[in-house]
C-alpha cells in the first residue's frame, strides 16, 4: 500500500478529550480501481460513438409518374403506412380490395416484426413461391426514427424486396380514421 505519511502530531493532547488521529497510511487500491473503471468507460464509449450508416437504395426517378407506382402483384405486396405516435397501419393487397384490411400495429420485435415474419411465410404459399414485397409509405406525420426502424426491420427480417414510395390521399384517410394522423 502506498503510504501518505502525515506528521503524527506532537503527541496527544492531555486531558479527557483526545482527538483520534487518522492513521498516516492511505490505501490507494480503491483509486486504482476507479481509474480503471473510467478507462474502460471511455474506451467503450468512443467506439460506440462512431456513427453507423444504413444504406438505402431508391429506384430511378420516373419523371412521368410522380407517385412511383410500379406494377407489383397484389398477392405479393404488403403496404406499411407510417403514421404518427409511432404506429403503423398495414394492409395486404390493394387498398380498394384488400386481402387483409388495414390494421394498426406497433414498431419493434412484438409488433411489426411478427407481422413481417408471418407474411414472409404466407406470401410464397399464396403467390406460388414468389417472395414478399414490402411497400413503405411514410406519412408527413411520421418521423425519421420511424423510417429508420422500418428499414432496420427489413434488414433484420431479411426482406429482399422493399421500396419507399409516396402515400396517397386514400391511405391518409385510413390513417386519419385510425387516429394515426396527429401532429
Amino acid at each position, binding site marked *: *500500500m*502506498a503510504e501518505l505519511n502525515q506528521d503524527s502530531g506532537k503527541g496527544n493532547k492531555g486531558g479527557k478529550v483526545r482527538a483520534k488521529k487518522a492513521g498516516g497510511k492511505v*490505501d*490507494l*487500491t480503491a*483509486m*486504482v480501481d476507479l*481509474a*480503471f473503471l*473510467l*478507462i474502460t468507460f*471511455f*474506451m467503450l*464509449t*468512443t467506439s*460506440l*460513438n*462512431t*456513427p*453507423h*450508416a*444504413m*444504406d*438505402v*437504395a*431508391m*429506384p*430511378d*426517378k420516373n419523371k412521368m409518374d410522380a407517385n412511383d407506382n410500379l406494377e407489383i402483384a397484389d398477392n405479393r405486396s404488403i403496404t406499411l403506412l*407510417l403514421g404518427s405516435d409511432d404506429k403503423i397501419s398495414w394492409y395486404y393487397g390493394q387498398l380498394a380490395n384488400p386481402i387483409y384490411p388495414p390494421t394498426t400495429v406497433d414498431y*419493434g*420485435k412484438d409488433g411489426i416484426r411478427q407481422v413481417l415474419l408471418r407474411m414472409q411465410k404466407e406470401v410464397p404459399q399464396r403467390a406460388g413461391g414468389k417472395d414478399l414485397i414490402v411497400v413503405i409509405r*411514410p*406519412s*408527413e*406525420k*411520421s*418521423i*425519421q*426514427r*420511424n*423510417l*429508420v*426502424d422500418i*428499414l*432496420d426491420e427489413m*434488414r*433484420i427480417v431479411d426482406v429482399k424486396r422493399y421500396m*419507399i414510395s409516396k402515400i396517397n390521399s386514400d391511405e391518409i384517410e385510413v390513417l386519419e380514421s385510425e387516429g394515426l394522423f396527429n401532429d
Partner: protein
Amino acid sequence: MGKAKVKRASTSIDMTAMCDVSFLLLTFFVLTATARQPEVLVVDTPASSSPEKVPDDNVGIISVAEGKIFFSVKNPNVREITLKNMSQKYNINFSAEDYEQFRQLDEFGVPIQNLRQLLSLPNDQRTESIQPGIPVDTTETSSNELYSWVQEARRATIEFNRSREGERGYEDPGPMKVAIKADAEEKYPIINLIIETLRNQKQNKFSFVTGLRSDS
C-alpha cells in the same frame, strides 16, 4: 518465541506506480475521445442494427435537425473545389481568405448569399442559432441550393480524384458517397425533400447515419 524468528514478508504492494499508469492511460483516452471540432448542429440520430460505418473520407453529409439543413464535405481539398464551383454557378466572388476559412469549416447551414458573412465571423460565433439552414425545395433550379451543393461536391470529388491519378499507389475511391444525418424526431416531409433532391440528380444510393442499437 524461540531464536528462530521468521521475518514476516510484507504482503502489502505499493500501488503508487499502478495508479500513475492508470491515470496516464485515462488521460490518453479522455483526450483522444473528445478531440474533435464541436458540432455546430446537435443531431440525435435514431438507432439501428446496421454494422456499416460512415466512411471518414470521400463523403458528403447532409445534417437535418429542427427543420434546418446543414452540409459538410469531409475532405478539405474537395471542400475548396466545391466552393470554387459554387462561386462560378452563383456568381459570387470569394477571397483567398474566404477559401482558407472554408477549408477549415466542417459544417455550415446558410444560404450562399450569407456565406461570406459567415466565413468572416470567428469560429466560436458561428453558432447554430445564427444559421438558418440551406434552402431546399422540389426543383432542380438554383433556388434549391442543397441540390447545387451536392452536385458541385460530387463534381469536385471527381475532379480531385482525377487530379490524383498520377500518384503512385493511388486507388480511386470512386464517386462521393452521400449520408443523411437526421435527428430522430425530425418529421418526414423535410427528409423527403432531401431524398427527392438526391434522386433528381440520379444519386439513388445514400445512407442514413444512425447510432448502434445494442439489443433487439
